[in-house]
């Protein structure tokens, strides 16, 4: 990794010396300009010649779906990734950003989606860290630090107790600490990565007020989001990114949610598998008024009710983080629901563990195959029996039958086209697509009544996606009730007989999968509402 040559000027006309000590700021130049930024990862172009211009005193929204390339772009700005092409200009002067410390020194601060705060330290300590206000060579000047923090807080409209431990603050206040941290370092350009993802509507409104104050004082704010109404509410300008490319730039005055949704989601549907006719039968899998808490004790699932009929695929669309993970964990036995009822084939299975659910006929392809689905250091054949190792023919009592496992593995490898040198290589050495095929092979081969697919094709290549989709349709035709949860709208649209949209822990709408309209679902995902409306931010459905 060569540090200094972070950015190669793409055009010969670029200022020859990118050293900030030599070049003076250019009059009336934008605070930040990114030109032709391109970043390729193996097999994918994350950023494809992206141009971005942010003026002083502007709130600039970067809008795009998960995976559109926003984070990559910001990592480049923050010195965490090196672009393959393109250049960055601060105040009109080309610069090379070598890392986070360099970015901070140049007045760029980032508020990460996952806060970079130390919970056990106080607000003041978190803000001071790395940029300490000193009383002398050794000791901190804590009273001066407190004074400056109070002063900064007051300037931007909130009172904060510098001595409160950060861990005791609400998420909204933690976010303010992050912003204060940036301001304490005299940031001029503030990047907020999905700042509202974890906030309540009220907190969101309050943070927006802070951001407006910041802009009024001449700071530039880059606001990354995929929530249309927020972007419209707070941004001065909006740049929309889709699949690594800038697809449009708007001001709130000249656009609306429909326009932005279309830009963000796009129209094209790339993959189509002929899904054939479905013949739904009796409800095989039902969920009634399910409430589930997340790890921090907040209610992430708020009264979900649904029923999946035998022989149908029921899709749950939604932007990631709207309670889907908790919902899936609760119905697959990995998390105890707080309230509600789950039935499988007419039997109440509420609160059963994975083993019991498996025996009752539920299989589950987890979204995170490294966390749940596979033991990477184990041979492929062991992974292929991970959920049935204890049953005949793989075991008799306590004794495992290796030959049966191996035969089974070889059959699965052939049937599901898992590309591997043999069945005894560690699963972790396979490519992502083949790892996922192994999980699918294992779960689809069980004696099934119902199947939960969580992001079944996340991060896979086209071939594997298509293969897995075909397998899912085949299971549907065999009479299995399938619950498909995915943040990929295309996948939902392509497979589902019925589509529900999950928004803030609730199912806000159920539509027919065959007649579903992409724009309509996109709008529901982004806003939780079907119609354009002028209701204030955070209004409940």
């Amino acid at each position: 990794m060569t540090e200094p040559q972070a950015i190669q000027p793409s055009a010969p006309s670029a200022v020859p010396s990118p050293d900030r000590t030599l070049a003076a700021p250019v009059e009336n130049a934008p605070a930040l300009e990114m030109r032709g930024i391109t970043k390729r990862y193996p097999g994918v172009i994350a950023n494809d010649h992206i141009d971005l211009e942010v003026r002083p005193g502007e709130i600039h929204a970067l809008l795009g779906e998960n995976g559109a390339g926003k984070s990559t772009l910001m990592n480049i700005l923050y010195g965490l990734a090196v672009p393959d092409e393109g250049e960055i200009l601060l105040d009109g002067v080309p610069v090379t950003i070598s890392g986070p410390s360099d970015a901070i020194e140049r007045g760029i601060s980032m508020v990460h989606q996952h806060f970079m705060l130390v919970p056990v330290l106080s607000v003041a300590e978190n803000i001071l860290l790395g940029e300490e206000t000193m009383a002398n060579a050794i000791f901190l000047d804590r009273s001066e630090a407190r004074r400056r923090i109070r002063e900064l807080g007051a300037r931007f409209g909130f009172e904060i107790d510098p001595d409160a431990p950060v861990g005791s603050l609400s998420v909204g206040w933690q976010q303010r600490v992050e912003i204060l941290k940036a301001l304490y370092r005299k940031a001029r350009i503030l990047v907020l990565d999905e700042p509202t993802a974890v906030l309540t509507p009220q907190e969101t409104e309050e943070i927006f007020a802070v951001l407006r104050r910041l802009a009024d004082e001449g700071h530039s704010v880059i606001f990354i989001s995929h929530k249309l109404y927020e972007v419209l509410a707070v941004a001065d300008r909006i740049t929309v990114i889709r699949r690594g490319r800038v697809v449009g730039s708007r001001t709130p005055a000249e656009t609306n949610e429909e326009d932005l949704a279309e830009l963000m989601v796009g129209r094209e549907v790339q993959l189509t598998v002929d899904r054939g006719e479905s013949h739904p039968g009796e409800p095989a899998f039902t969920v009634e008024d399910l409430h589930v808490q997340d790890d921090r004790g907040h209610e992430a699932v708020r009264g979900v009710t649904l029923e999946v009929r035998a022989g149908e695929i029921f899709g749950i669309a939604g932007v990631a983080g709207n309670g889907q993970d908790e919902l899936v964990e609760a119905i697959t036995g990995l998390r105890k629901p707080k309230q509600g009822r789950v039935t499988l084939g007419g039997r109440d299975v509420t609160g059963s563990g994975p083993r019991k659910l498996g025996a009752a006929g539920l299989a589950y392809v987890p979204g995170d195959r490294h966390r749940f689905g596979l033991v990477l250091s184990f041979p492929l054949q062991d992974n292929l029996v991970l959920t049935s190792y204890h049953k005949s023919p793989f075991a008799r009592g306590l004794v495992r039958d290796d030959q049966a496992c191996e035969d089974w593995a070889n059959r699965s490898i052939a049937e599901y086209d898992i590309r591997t040198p043999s069945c005894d290589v560690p699963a972790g050495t396979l490519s992502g697509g083949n790892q996922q095929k192994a999980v699918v092979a294992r779960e689809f081969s069980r004696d099934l009544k119902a199947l939960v697919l969580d992001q079944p094709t996340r991060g896979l290549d086209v071939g594997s996606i298509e293969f897995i989709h075909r397998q899912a349709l085949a299971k549907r035709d065999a009479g299995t009730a399938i619950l498909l949860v995915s943040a990929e709208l295309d996948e939902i649209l392509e497979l589902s007989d019925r589509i529900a949209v999950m928004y803030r822990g609730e199912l806000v709408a159920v539509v027919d999968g065959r007649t579903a309209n992409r724009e309509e679902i996109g709008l529901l995902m982004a806003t939780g509402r079907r119609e354009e409306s002028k209701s204030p931010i955070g209004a409940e459905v």
Partner: protein
Amino acid sequence: MSGGPSGPDQEPATDPKPAMDPSADAGPVIEAEAPQAASPQAAVPPPLPRDPVARFWSVAAVPIAAVVLALLVGSLIILASSFFAVGGFEPLLPVEAYSSLLRGSFGSVNGLVNTVVAATPLVLAGLAVGIGFKAGLFNIGAQGQFLMGALAAAGTGAALAQQPPPIAIGGALLAAAIGGGLWGFIPGALKAWTGAHEVVTTIMLNYIAAAVIGYLITGPLAAPGFSFARTGPVGNAALPIILGRNGHLGILIALLAVPLAYWLLWRSTLGFELRTVGANPNAARYAGMRPGLLTIFTLSLCGLLAGLAGGGQILGTSGFMNASYGTATGFDAIAVALLGRAHPVGILAASLLFGAMRAGSGLMQIEARIPVEIIDVIQAVILLFLAADVIVRRILRLRAARSGVDEIQTVTRSYGEQAAR
């Protein structure tokens, strides 16, 4: 908020076999924003070669190299010691020392038997640590479990001394297994029920075991008529000699434990569960296993094995226990398990190596005047080379070989989460 960063964050093996699957993961992948998706699991070792010789070498290269290098380092230490040992520089002293070590351990029937006898407790205690490793547990408590097993065997043996041998021996060994098992159950239950990390609790239990022994042997279990506090003779509970001068029945128990442990780990569903919990507790839960119960079971089993090791020592070699009874077997067991890669056969081999060094060190001290403690030094250096296996691999250019301690990469990472559950 729990935990900090989670490991190397690599998608293991992005393309280990480009020739085989060129198209995999190509195309417009949506989720490209996080090319370094966080993986909670330890790095994946390279696949084992199919050829048995290559397979053996890829697993055993680093341990063997570590032993060889450690012996070299040991010879340098001996060389430097020659000023003190023989009062002048003696370039051949290492040769002399190692040859008397060899003769002491393998040079005679008695030497051989001594080697096997010395290896016996190491095998059992080594399994007690190694099986723990497989389940993602660092059992530093083999020492305490060993002592509790010894205590139980000594107490029960003395009580049953007049009974017919099968009853006496069976009873005493059973007591050893229960005593050790109980001392393993405690940290297992603490971890499963309260989240207390086993590293700290087992260390503490080692010392509590010593206190229990001190109390019982100077008090309730003290036999009258001796000038120092000790338990009564084990009488009929003494293990019969089956090999040479002092090769006791414990050897057979240890030899039996190796295939049993192997069977448990790789042929039984229980072992599969145990290894799954060790490699990826989340996947274990997903697969319907119960990590908490498995933790309790594993540590109890480890304690049972270490307890048998202690019982074997009392019933097979010493015949009684005194208040200051102490060997470093429980700590040597950690070295044995690491060197043997937590594999039963590897543990057997490592135990024989360490047993031989112990058995031969006496002769070495007499003939070459090199103190027996050099064995501990060499053991530590072996571990050092295993832990810092990058050095070994660089020296030997063993890129394909597996790292020294990859079985246990996830063990310590959880230390800070002991209270978080």
